[in-house]
């Protein structure tokens, strides 16, 4: 569906279901140079199990108009505006990587509007290497190759997808290649520059699920320790032999963890 947010058409995948104000709403927020498609299996499950699903394309990404937002705080503000546009007072937020930082920031600043929070592949801080930033700044394809190289566990680089017939790294590459010029650099700068994560975490009282990949090289699990310490009401699940692309590499593990955290209705 298309939603007008601050005068701009913004897309949200709903699992082909009409929005029902009586149901709880889950907002899925993707990472850098990605779109709603990274949540395909998980978002579809909840859309067909008693929830409204709004898997957004952030501004400048996927099917949404506008420009990519320059900071995690700006993305968090946009998420508030998106919920306002949808007339959703309180939602469950599920974010991946940059999307996790934005969800964290929003939950810290607007705890009353976030019923539950699930953060996948999240680390605070989330520094980005100079080499990757430079490549992204030049819109060099090497940036996508570096991300792909770091985003999948070593075993998953050779495939063995749980989703039949889909070549994981090839699919991830095509999705990034579709991002508009400059978007990846803007997104990576937002991740690199985000310094308020621990402050936001300390403000959150509601339940938080952290889903980490044991072999994550983009946001290594050890870099999540400060975030884990700052959260009070948390549950941490580490998926073995999984990299940063958790939803693709371990779709059932991710879904099972989310189901336990967000029981289907």
């Amino acid at each position, binding site marked *: 569906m298309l939603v007008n947010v601050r005068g701009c058409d913004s897309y949200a*995948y709903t699992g*082909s279901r009409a929005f029902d104000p009586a149901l709880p709403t889950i907002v899925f927020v993707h990472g850098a140079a990605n*779109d*709603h*498609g990274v949540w*395909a*299996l*998980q978002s*579809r*499950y909840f859309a*067909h199990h008693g929830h409204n699903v709004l898997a957004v394309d952030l501004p400048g990404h*996927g*099917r949404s108009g506008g420009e990519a937002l320059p900071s995690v705080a700006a993305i968090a503000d946009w998420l508030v505006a998106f919920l306002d546009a949808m007339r959703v007072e309180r939602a469950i937020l599920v974010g991946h990587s940059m999307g996790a930082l934005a969800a964290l920031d929003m939950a810290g600043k607007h705890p009353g509007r976030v019923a539950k929070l699930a953060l996948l592949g999240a680390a605070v801080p989330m520094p980005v290497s100079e*080499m990757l930033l*430079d*490549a992204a700044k030049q819109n*060099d394809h*090497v940036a996508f*190759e*570096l991300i792909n*190289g770091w985003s999948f566990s070593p*075993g998953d*680089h*050779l*495939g*063995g*997808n*749980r*989703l*039949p*017939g*889909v*070549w994981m790294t*090839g*699919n991830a590459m*095509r*999705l990034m*290649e*579709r991002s508009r010029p400059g978007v990846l650099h803007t997104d990576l700068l937002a991740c690199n520059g985000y310094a308020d994560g621990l402050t936001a975490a300390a403000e959150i009282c509601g339940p938080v699920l952290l889903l980490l990949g044991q072999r994550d090289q983009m946001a290594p699990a050890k870099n999540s320790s400060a975030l884990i310490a700052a959260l009070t009401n948390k549950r941490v699940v580490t998926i073995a032999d999984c990299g940063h692309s958790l939803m693709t590499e371990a*779709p*059932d593990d991710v*879904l099972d963890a989310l189901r336990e955290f967000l029981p289907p209705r």
Partner: protein
Amino acid sequence: MTKPKTTRFDTLTLHAGARPDPATGARATPIYQSASFVFRDSDHAAALFNMERAGHVYSRISNPTCAVLEERISALEGGVGAIAVASGQAALHLAIVSLMGAGSHIVASRSLYGGSHNLLEFTLPRFGVDTTFVDPRDLDAWRRAIRPTTRLLFGETLGNPGLEVLDVPRVAELAHEHGLPLLVDSTFTTPYLMRPFELGADLVYHSATKFLSGHGVVIGGLLVDGGRFVWDEPGKSAGKFPTLTEPYAGFHDMVFAEESTTAAFLLRARREGIRDFGACMAPMTAFQILQGIETLPLRMQRHVDNTRKIVAFLAAHPFVEAVGYPELPQHPDHVLAQALLPRGCGAVFSFSIRGTRDQGRRFIESLRIFSHLANVGDAKSLVIHPASTTHFRVSAEDLRAAGITEGTIRLSVGLEDPDDLVEDLGRALYAAEKA
């Protein structure tokens, strides 16, 4: 900037898509010879049916052995995914029916495998899909043939049997200008010789019966999605592909292009095409094709090396009128072949003898190593007379246009010692000349 290391082609031919079997530790990909797969519980069953979980339900839709093959060909082609089907013909059919319905139109190269030509010329019109055939070398002809109802451009990387080299970059550019995808039959070249997605093609299919397998013991097809084509680009493709961009009542109103940004075509082809038309691949077939692909780089290089020796021999033989191989300077696509096929132009080519139809028959019947049959891409060398076999339904006019005469003989060069092959051909040419 230093490029990050990625797994190379030859390694992918052995490993892509496969892991040691988690249940048994088997290193070879097991043959999952099972029609269906047990659900953990009712919720798991429903989730698999509704694409909420990944996994296998029924081997017509997907199968673990076939899935390894699908990933492997996707990795080798540089695509996002693939579907293994019953034959190359099934792959072509699946591509077409996933994209269009009655009232649609295709522009295709006129230099096609006879079976593909039959499907487009005689069968699909009965279902309301028409095709205009064009000279694959004439870009203006491709352009002129495009209509408002056109939904696909289609050609073979190397035309059959004249080996017209499809100018994939230019035909793809033309297709994209009109908001249309380019489908390529890459059977003759395999990803070892050409990776059409890197040149602009959008969909690739193979008769995996041929070089991918190499052993000539199975029939199978593979349809690969490049994942780049935008199916609803405003002012270009928007409105042309409702099978991908509008709700599909046959799958809970799923809009495939929204469900997957990169693999919408693949989703439709699996969730409707394989489900409803049912031309799936058997797991045993997938296993056998995987065995072939493991040696693809070694075999293709040997195929090309042997072919070069035979082409040189035939080109110098006084009883041979013409040899059509793009590596020869006189071939019309020589320059293009050097650009698009630097590793070689495959192992299938045609030549004509200076003689009568009876002398042609004597030539074929005098061969001892080359087998006279209707196939290509076997490890064993093969020979056929196209005008009376693979292309016998094609009109005389179209035969001429495709460069086929009564004296045309097609060879598929195998992996035997090239000196034995040259001697076999020399002996048969001598017998034909004296007949």
